[in-house]
């Protein structure tokens, strides 16, 4: 199986995902935060480059997610959006 260029592909963070235990999770209702830094992908500032937030590496997101108490289980990377599946 070899995906063509541009095909979304999956990366699994095996270290976290292998031994996860949700016994202490107690309810589902989520909090949803959506922060826009430009009105569209087509209006990014020159200083952000065409990739914008997508240029931020995983380790940097990990530092932010630590404060949220989430860990990355896996990621689907694609040209337009990166979808992170998180713990808890």
């Amino acid at each position: 199986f070899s995906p063509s260029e541009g095909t979304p592909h999956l990366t699994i963070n095996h270290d976290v995902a292998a031994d996860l235990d949700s016994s202490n999770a107690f309810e589902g209702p989520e909090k949803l935060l959506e922060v826009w830094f430009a009105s569209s992908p087509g209006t990014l500032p020159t200083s952000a480059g065409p990739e914008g937030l997508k240029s931020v590496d995983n380790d940097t997101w990990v530092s932010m997610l630590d404060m949220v108490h989430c860990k990355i289980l896996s990621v689907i990377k694609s040209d337009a959006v990166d979808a992170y599946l998180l713990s808890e």
Partner: protein
Amino acid sequence: SSMFVFPHKIILKTCGTTTLLLGLQRLLRIAATAGFPFCKASAAKDLRAAAIPYRVFYSRKNFLFPDKQQGPHRSWKQEVKYLDDTFEGGSAYMVGKMNGDHWYLYITSPNKTITPPLTPESDDSVSVADSTASGVRHANDETLEILMTDLDPECAKQFQLSHASAVASDWLSAEAHEARHEAVSSHGGLATPLAEVDVFDNFCDKPMDESAQDVSTEGHALGTVVSESCGLSKIYPTSVYPGARVDAFLFSPCGFSANGVIPASQPDHGEELGPMHYFTVHVTPEPGFSYASFETNVPGGQRGRTTAEIIEHVVEIFRPGRFSVTLFEAKSGANPYGRGNENPAMQRLVDSVQGYRRIDRIVHDFEDYDLVFRFYERE
């Protein structure tokens, strides 16, 4: 929990006792580092090089156990204060019955001070956005959210590890193997067939075929099984949405999360070119506080599946005792509907859902978005 990172925005949806808003300041600093406009250091508010957002949305359903929450998440009042201390021009709303299953929203107005020079590559894509008094906004910006409580016990059982393991065993039997292969083939591998799941430690970005392994974690493997068996993988099948991909995880002893990415319409289909879309599903199946959420920004009607069909499909998977449907949709112009015409979001949400009685129907007309909220109970 899930996070979606686009070039221009980030969506973070977190469950349980996570402290979502405590990551906000770090997020703003990361965005500043990534090159987005930022404000100067402010010792009082600790806003060192924090990027200035174009706009912010924060929403949540009322919590079942607010006392167990941490940080500013114990009450809506505290969350609003935290957001007001961080952003200017925010507005907070409660949608739905105060003594029932209500929903909260915090929204800021578009920041018109952000008028960055465009990157050369971006000039063309501006033509598909539509300019309004509020600024430039991409067309087809809509989000559908279905929040379901009191799930049917038989449906909820599917998201228990013990049940999913039994299903997986059946699938791996000789007879079922062929059926599974056929099912996966017919869906174009939407839910990531087990043999195509690869494991890359430390997020190394190798092409899949360089270090492919045919084993995933148990959580991912069973998540894939559950996606297929419960019908989730058929919501956006690759036969209709080519290139769609799902990443699912079944927690131990129970609980389920899935993300999906759906490529936008192709120009040669005669449809408007748009960004990659997403959907996400989270399930807490425990009796007494069972809950499931479904969220997507795939435009309703794109390639044939209407918003009403999506709602029916999702509700059928969980058969909740109660659920709310929220459609948040950007207006497409200063006077988009014409005098006397109902807005598209309202037209798209049909009233009736088989087997359910509609209790509430609430419409919010924001500056540049419409919000339609509906609440249903099982008949």
